[in-house]
């Protein structure tokens, strides 16, 4: 039980650091920290395979992409490298605080007056995994059986994303009149 609170504390502290730190590279590193702590949360929920995937795909691949782009842009202070957090409050800030308060209120109502089964301990999924013979095997059987069509659709989505990323990264792509660079081809 204490390990959940420790991990939850780490997750919330890391998330706050992502939002509050002015330098984007610090935010990216704190986001890696938060995702690692979330993998620990998955472990306490008995989702070992997802925890490993979280570390490899999220904290590994996706965050490396973030850090790589931050390095590629080589931001200086004037162009978004450092950002002052002390600005006057606008409509977005008021909306944000209202949204967070509404979310907290709903969660409080759920915990206080919701279904009592939510406050009981978590259902042991051990028998479900025991009959399937291992966690990753159970997930694989479900992924390639019941969820085969969504799986294939996800692969098509990833293909479209790859093509889109390549097409957007081409330098000679002219979108609008906001273009102020030369439009020469890049080999």
């Amino acid at each position, binding site marked *: *039980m204490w390990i959940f609170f420790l991990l939850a504390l780490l*997750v919330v502290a890391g*998330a*706050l650091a*992502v*939002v509050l730190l002015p330098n*984007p590279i610090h935010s990216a590193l704190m*986001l890696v920290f938060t*995702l690692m702590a979330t993998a620990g*949360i*998955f*472990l*306490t*929920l008995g989702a070992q395979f*997802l925890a490993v995937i*979280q570390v490899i795909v999220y904290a590994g691949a*996706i965050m490396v*992409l*973030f850090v790589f*782009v*931050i390095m*590629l*842009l080589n*931001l200086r202070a004037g*162009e*978004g490298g450092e*950002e002052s957090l002390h600005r006057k409050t606008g409509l977005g*800030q008021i909306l*944000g*605080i209202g949204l*967070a308060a509404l979310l*907290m209120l*709903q969660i409080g109502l759920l*915990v206080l007056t*919701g279904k009592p*089964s*939510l*406050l*009981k*301990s*978590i259902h*042991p*999924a*051990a028998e*479900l995994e025991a009959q399937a013979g291992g966690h990753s095997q159970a*997930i694989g059987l*479900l*992924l390639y059986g019941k969820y085969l069509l*969504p799986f294939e659709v*996800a692969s098509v*989505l*990833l293909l479209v*994303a790859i093509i*889109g*990323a390549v097409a*957007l*990264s081409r330098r000679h792509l002219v979108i609008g009149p*906001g273009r*102020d*660079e030369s439009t020469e081809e890049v080999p």
Partner: protein
Amino acid sequence: MNESVLPMLVPVAWYQVLAAVLFAIGAMGVLFRRNILVIFMCVELMLNATNIAFVAFARHLGSLDGQIIVFFVLAVAAAEVSVGLAIIIDVFRKRGTVDLAAANILKG
């Protein structure tokens, strides 16, 4: 299973509270920050919060379907990040900044 190592004494509602707090922090980040890269990271935080909620409910219901959904969330997040970062690089090339106020080409 690791029931003997980690006794499951935490109610699922507390996991939902953690997910809600994380989602709220991410939403605040999206609304407060001006740097597009950091806003993108806050979107990842929000996706992460939904992942925690999905896995907690999957555990609560004794089913693995929630964990499968998390796989698809991961795939969509990867696609979103690759396209989004390409767009950010393009905006930086055109505007020389990643401040959100500079991305106003579509403003009528």
